[in-house]
């Protein structure tokens, strides 16, 4: 009898890229619902626009590179990029801002560097940084969360859609009427005008740790992240590194001068910390690759987030922190190679 040949092993792997990416998407679903509850349907519109442009960009680039579009879209990686971009942008963002971020992320940061697996920079963060620099006004426009304020105006689906499509609000609404500083922004400017953090924290817009409402989104993102950890889709090294890198310096500063510095808990539950720790920094392609290297990479991101929030001119520093650490990956990878079994030091045989 004759048989087909193939190389060992003869047991098929169970995991696949598409299922990993799908589970990342599932992990963000609860946070999406909470986000929509607090800020309206803007996130969903942003997601749809980002998905459209990410998939379009991916398909176009695969076509241009003469590769299979079906395979590239089948791995869901472009959709994950789109969803993270949507989470990073404010709920009310004109479509062209979202589209620019999506296209830059997919076309330039991902495909011009060689496509999935070869990109140096996290595509979502690269796209986000571009619009952060190009459209600062739009990126600083945050609305108030639905937390029962007296002067609160809940933006309707229609108003959101109108702003998303045209970049303007209906005549009866002005931007000033509904915009609010994000907690990070508010705390930063209050600290710079000689308020103590205790005073700031007493403001009703502040919750237990982060801003009221805002911190619940962080909680749900963290829950999704913990679920990914339990499912072993991501490992603990990067998230723990990010937390350590953020909490150790902010904790030290807070212990030394509690008045002049925001609490570590505030930093942990504000802005993009949780999204970054569990969903952005853990992007395997652009992260360091050895377990030890990943921890170092996480610590670097955490520390840079703190440094930018505390001393930089941007309210949040997640995207810059990730991009900067992406650049450090080759060095980290080189310096944190694990000791190979049977070698005393790396690349050295025992006794040699």
């Amino acid at each position, binding site marked *: *009898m*004759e*048989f*087909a*040949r*193939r*190389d*060992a*092993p*003869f*047991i*098929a*792997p*169970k*995991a*696949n*890229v598409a*299922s*990993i990416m799908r589970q990342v998407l599932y992990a963000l679903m609860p946070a999406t619902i909470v986000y929509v509850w607090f800020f309206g349907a803007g996130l969903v519109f942003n997601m749809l626009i980002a998905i459209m442009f990410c998939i379009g960009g991916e398909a176009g680039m695969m076509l241009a590179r003469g590769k299979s579009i079906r*395979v590239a879209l089948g*791995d869901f*990686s472009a959709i994950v990029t789109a969803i993270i971009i949507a989470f990073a942008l404010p709920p009310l963002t004109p479509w062209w801002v979202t589209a620019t971020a999506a296209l830059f992320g997919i076309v330039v940061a991902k495909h011009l560097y060689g*496509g*999935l*697996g*070869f990109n140096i920079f996290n595509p979502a963060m690269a796209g986000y940084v571009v619009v952060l620099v190009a459209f600062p006004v739009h990126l600083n426009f945050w609305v108030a969360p639905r937390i029962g304020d007296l002067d609160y105006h809940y933006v309707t689906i229609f108003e959101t859609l109108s702003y998303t499509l045209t970049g303007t609000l209906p005549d009866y609404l002005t931007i000033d009427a509904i915009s609010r500083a994000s907690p990070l922004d508010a705390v930063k400017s209050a600290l710079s005008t000689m308020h103590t953090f205790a005073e700031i924290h007493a403001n009703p817009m502040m919750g237990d740790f982060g801003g009221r409402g805002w911190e619940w989104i962080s909680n749900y993102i963290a829950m999704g992240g913990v679920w990914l950890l339990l499912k072993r889709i991501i*490992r603990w090294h990067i998230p723990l590194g990010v937390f350590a890198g953020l909490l150790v310096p902010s904790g030290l500063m807070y212990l030394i001068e509690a008045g002049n510095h925001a609490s570590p808990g505030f930093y942990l539950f504000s802005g993009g910390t949780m999204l970054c720790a569990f969903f952005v920094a853990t992007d*395997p*392609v652009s*992260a360091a*690759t*050895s*377990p030890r290297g*990943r921890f170092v990479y996480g610590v670097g991101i955490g520390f840079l987030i703190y440094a930018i929030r505390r001393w930089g001119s941007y309210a949040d520093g997640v995207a810059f922190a990730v991009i900067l650490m992406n650049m450090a990956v080759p060095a980290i*990878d080189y310096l944190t*190679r*694990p*000791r*190979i*079994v*049977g*070698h005393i030091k790396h*690349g050295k*045989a*025992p*006794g040699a």
Partner: protein
Amino acid sequence: MSAPTFDLGNLHGGLRMPRRKDKSNKQPIQQVPVPQQLIIPITQHVGDPAQVVVGIGERVLKGQLIAESDGPISAPVHASSSGKVVAIEPWPVSRRLGGNAPCIIIECDGEDRAIELSEPITPYESLDQEILFQKILQGGIVGLGGAVFPTAQKLMHASITPLEHLVLNGIECEPYITCDDMLMREQANEVLGGAQILMHALGVEHCFVAVESDKPEAIHAIADVMTALQDDRIALKQIPTIYPSGAEDQTVQLVTNKEVPTGGLPTDVGCVVQNVGTAAAVYRWICKGEPLISRVTTVTGDGITAPMNVSARIGTTVADIINFVGGYTENVHHLVIGGPMTGRSVTTDRIPLVKATNCILVMSDEEQFGHEQPCIRCGACASVCPVQLLPQQLFWYACADNEAKLRGYGLMDCIECGCCDLVCPSHIPLTADFRMAKARMRELADEKARAERSRQRYEAHTERLEKEQMLRAQQLEAQKQAAREGGSKAIRDILERTSKKDAQDPGED
């Protein structure tokens, strides 16, 4: 009896994987009858081929030497049954690269008559080390765990190093395979008897029998015989069920908590590892006079109707064995010789069972293999690598053919266990890629060595020519000098000589 111990070393990574062992270990080992024809390859071991010592047409008896060991690393081959040598010709065998190898083909007479022993069996305790090594060599015994290194030579090499432990490897961590499990259940006395002989031969005072914890029956059987033997030099170690705990260096690491240095051998940390099947084979030869002419092998997989373990004569074809166990199912895809992680797929079942064949695995198409996708550097491979390599980096450098980086990242330390393949979400055939990169690197090293040799030869050649030229110049100079010093007399002499010659020679015109 020593209690099972759990004081084990650490193994990095590894995999808990589907065992699929209960397919084949539900019934006792079955004896495959003498086939009509035996196809016995003359090289069934690592090292130099054996030399054929029988002619075509010659009648041979079971256990008769048909090819003798030849070279520093080699092992003899014996006839597995009685009959007539009908041909010595190339035949398909299971090698990594496929192809044919020279085999002795014996038409069996069915009588299965054994040859008389050339010397009576003497108790091994009365034999010296050297004689015992020679005897083990004559038995054609090789490592039955799959590596088929000639046992005598492994022992000889080990005996000149300081040794602490003999480790009997009964771990058998690959899915599907149960031949060592069944051997330990049924022939634990032979296994431990072999251990005693090996300890005597090596002069070691301690032996670990390492068995994976998912083989309670085998552990009991070994423990029972240990109680009966009352030999306190032998200790049983239960090894956690994690693949690849049975790979030689990993076994040493688990049992003794010492790492075998890169490029080294277990003897560097005072250990000799022998498979339990090898120990049993040594026992049967030394104490019963039966050379290595049969072995237990697992016949299993979804592709056959009745998986089981069989004891078959070396040289029985896979087709005969499959027939004996009841034949194939309808849906057969791959025939694998060896386990599902490290075995080789072959294209035909005409190949013979050899000393290395611990498993015949017939796969249906139930196992679906996906298409290779780009590496996303998730690092799942690095977390399971038992040698703590970074397969994702190795893969990168293997694609780029970057030899220096491949060396630096320890490609040569890869044990090709296949763990990385199994966890790769991009379904990249990493082990196959690494195997290829290693072969390329070896080739490159060979080429370099060849280039170096020819460079040396060329330089020697030029040097020689220069020396000759110089010598000639010196001689010429010396002659000129002589001519000058001799002055006109010398010239006259020469002229005279030539003119005389002319006068004597009538010439043609």
